[in-house]
């Protein structure tokens, strides 16, 4: 086991003590991994020098899956086992996915989780597992580039991802064995990549059009604080849709529409993408379209392509207008417009956004890499490599959270664009004498009808003390954390009894299902789950001892001699447990140390508040002391 390396408070850790943290842009079409090296955030390349990893996984009967370029190369000959654009399926129900079904060449099967399952030669794969395979490939690349195990990762998601889509992404990280530091919204990541360079104050707009998702965020920058004022978007609109429209047009034009089979459908989409990319530079493109054994020459001009995509471009601008309105910001107040995502290379998109905001958008950082770079910068801060950083990202809830009420209506509890973390309590009462249980249906979306919103989960409140109808008052607290993820707790107010809650995510994997997948993956990889559990608990134990030591060095005056000695003893105890190689005992020891240091954590938090209110930051106080 490595020795603990603890930096003096106020000092940066020594270079060799730097932690390995990465930012991952898990995209619909391509994915990237980036890290801060020598003070600069860079994307990491594979052995061939490629930075972009195509988000494609090809499953094989006996061998491990292929990920990236190798998988993409085999897509046309093996369409059923080659999964691309899986991000579109994350957190979606089998029904919603069937809506997209005509375009997808996969064989779908519904599963118990309500999530769709993709039938492959390697068995049924959930979108979470496919994403985990992409994450694993990126993590492997990062371990090789950085020379060791990763301490943590920030993974980006579209700002407009709902709770189920975020949870699915978090589950994929867990399956891939990553320590997830934060889910970060893609436009916010892009703003960080730009903003830190420029140190500006003012309001900026980030227009992010990727392969399968569109986001717009309005942010206020103030001395390292990135405050998201409003966000909007569409998680089913992106460059893939441009390709699809163009592919349909090509088939129509060529008269080969009837000859389409799954493998030539892939070919047509690939051709459409190539034509789209060429039209960025060229006015007219001529290519050969092949389907069902026939080949036809097709010609497309840029004007024709622009006419095809115009309705989609307009849709994104309407979303921009709404986000501005939600932010309470006039177009003229926007100081900068930042373009993110490969699809912002399309000239018509750039022109339309420029016209809308009345200013030329920024394109100085490669739009494909900017999100991963921003994520790497935040990962570096969160993992503890930059204790003096001023950077702080304040994000919002993208879609309103509500509850089902009488008549299939939704009552909103937390409105969209509310800053997170947020907690809201709602009181419920019983409507029958002696009622001991109550069902609650949580939804996300802006519409009034339950049927028009996304169903997130159904909760059953149990163990309500039996009382007369209307006498029991149950306070249900909805909390959204900094990742944008919802949790729910409940308490009966007159007796103080905590009601238990059973959660059934509408389109997600249960904890048991994930545990099972983890077990399966270890069986296949012939690794030892016990060994992994032990390592995880050891790392966690070391982490909390380091954190407590640092805290004690910083705020020793908050502790009496006896209290400090008590904490030292608890830490020594946990250090002994680490050596036992029994992960259950280590876990119990971690719990015990956490309990023993509770009071200290609270005192530190109180002190933070008084410092902030007296106008001093810890940094200033440190500087005064030196």
């Amino acid at each position, binding site marked *: 086991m490595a020795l603990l390396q603890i930096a003096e408070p106020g000092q940066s850790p020594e270079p060799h003590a730097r932690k390995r943290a990465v930012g991952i842009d898990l995209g619909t079409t391509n994915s990237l991994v980036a890290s801060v090296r020598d003070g600069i955030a860079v994307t990491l390349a594979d052995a061939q020098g490629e930075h972009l990893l195509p988000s494609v996984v090809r499953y094989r009967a006996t061998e491990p899956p292929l990920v990236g370029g190798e998988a993409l190369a085999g897509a046309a000959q093996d369409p059923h086992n080659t999964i691309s654009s899986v991000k579109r399926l994350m957190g979606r129900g089998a029904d919603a996915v069937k809506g997209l079904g005509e375009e997808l060449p996969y064989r779908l099967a519904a599963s118990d989780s309500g999530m769709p399952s993709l039938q492959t030669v390697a068995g049924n794969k959930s979108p979470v597992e496919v994403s985990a395979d992409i994450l694993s490939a990126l993590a492997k690349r990062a371990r090789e580039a950085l020379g060791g195990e990763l301490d943590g990762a920030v993974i980006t998601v579209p700002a407009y991802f709902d709770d189920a889509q975020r949870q699915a992404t978090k589950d994929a990280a867990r399956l891939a064995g990553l320590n997830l*530091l*934060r889910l970060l919204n893609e436009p916010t990541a892009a703003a960080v990549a730009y903003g830190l360079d420029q140190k500006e104050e003012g309001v900026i707009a980030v227009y992010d059009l990727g392969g399968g998702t569109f986001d717009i965020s309005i942010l206020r920058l*103030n001395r390292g*604080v990135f*405050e998201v004022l409003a966000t909007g978007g569409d998680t089913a609109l992106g460059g893939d849709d441009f390709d699809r429209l163009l592919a349909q047009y090509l088939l129509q034009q060529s008269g080969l529409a009837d000859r389409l089979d799954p493998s030539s459908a892939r070919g047509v989409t690939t051709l459409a993408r190539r034509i789209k990319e060429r039209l960025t530079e060229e006015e007219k493109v001529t290519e050969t379209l092949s389907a069902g054994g026939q080949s036809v020459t097709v010609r497309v001009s840029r004007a024709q392509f622009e006419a095809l995509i115009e309705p989609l471009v307009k849709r994104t601008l*309407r*979303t921009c*207008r*709404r986000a501005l*309105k939600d932010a309470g910001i006039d177009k003229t107040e926007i100081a900068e417009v930042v373009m993110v995502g490969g699809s912002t290379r399309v000239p018509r998109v750039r022109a339309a956004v420029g016209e809308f905001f009345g200013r030329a958008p920024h394109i100085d950082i490669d739009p494909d890499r900017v999100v991963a770079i921003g994520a790497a910068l*935040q990962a570096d*801060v*969160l*993992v*503890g490599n930059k204790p003096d950083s*001023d950077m*702080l*990202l*304040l994000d919002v809830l993208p879609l309103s959270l509500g509850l089902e009420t009488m008549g299939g209506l939704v009552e909103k509890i937390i409105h969209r664009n*509310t*800053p*997170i*973390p*947020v*907690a809201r309590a709602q009181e419920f009462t019983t409507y029958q004498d002696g009622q001991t249980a109550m069902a609650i249906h949580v939804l996300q979306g*802006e519409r009034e009808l339950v049927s028009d919103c996304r169903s997130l989960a159904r909760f059953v409140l149990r163990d309500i003390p039996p009382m007369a109808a209307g006498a029991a008052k149950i306070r249900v607290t909805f*909390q959204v*954390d*900094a990742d944008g993820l919802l949790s729910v707790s409940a308490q009966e107010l007159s007796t103080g009894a905590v009601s238990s809650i059973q959660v059934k995510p509408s389109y997600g994997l249960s904890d048991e299902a994930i545990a099972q997948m983890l077990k399966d993956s270890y069986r296949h990889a012939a690794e030892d789950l016990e060994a992994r559990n032990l390592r995880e608990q050891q790392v966690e134990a070391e*982490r*909390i001892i380091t*954190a*407590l030591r640092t*805290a004690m060095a910083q705020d020793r005056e908050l502790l009496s001699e006896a209290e400090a000695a008590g904490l030292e003893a608890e830490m020594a105890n946990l250090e002994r447990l680490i050596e036992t190689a029994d992960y259950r005992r280590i876990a119990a020891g971690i719990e015990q140390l*956490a309990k023993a*240091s*509770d009071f200290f*954590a*609270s005192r*530190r*938090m*109180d002190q*933070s*508040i008084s*410092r*902030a*209110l007296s*106008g001093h*930051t*810890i940094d200033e106080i440190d500087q005064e002391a030196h």
Partner: protein
Amino acid sequence: MDMTRNYFEFLGLPVGFEIDQAELASRYRALQRQLHPDRHAHQSDREQRLAVQHTAHLNEAYATLKSPLRRAQYLLSLAGIETRHDRAPQLDPAFLMEQMELREQVAAAPESRAPEAELERLRALVESELGTLESDFAHAWESGALAQAELAVRKMQFLTKLQSEVAALEDKLFDE
């Protein structure tokens, strides 16, 4: 932390309806710099959980003080008057009549010849009436006329609801 301190004290501001928005925003950012979970990411789970709770509380306090209606409601609740759940006292018939007329105009706006301009006109109208009610409240509050202050808040609630209806209709227009 003592989460029972009122929001004004929590943000280090004097209790009152008049508020310096720039000062509020700057204190909010200063507290976020200390409390936000990202500031505690490599600390113990307990500290991270505390950070989430404190930041949620801070966000609630900030949202409450930033909005004139919520600030007014909050001041009244500090004085023991709940405006959000209890039954409303009788509002004067002239006000109610005017509200009904406004509501009809809003409902008819999408069918009007220029829906966007019509909604914009109504939005501006509602905003100016809200402005008047806010100064009514400020006066009443400062002179200790709580009943009058409550009346102003009840009226503000009506108009704020109307305001959100206008916004919802504008949203729908964007979707079309």
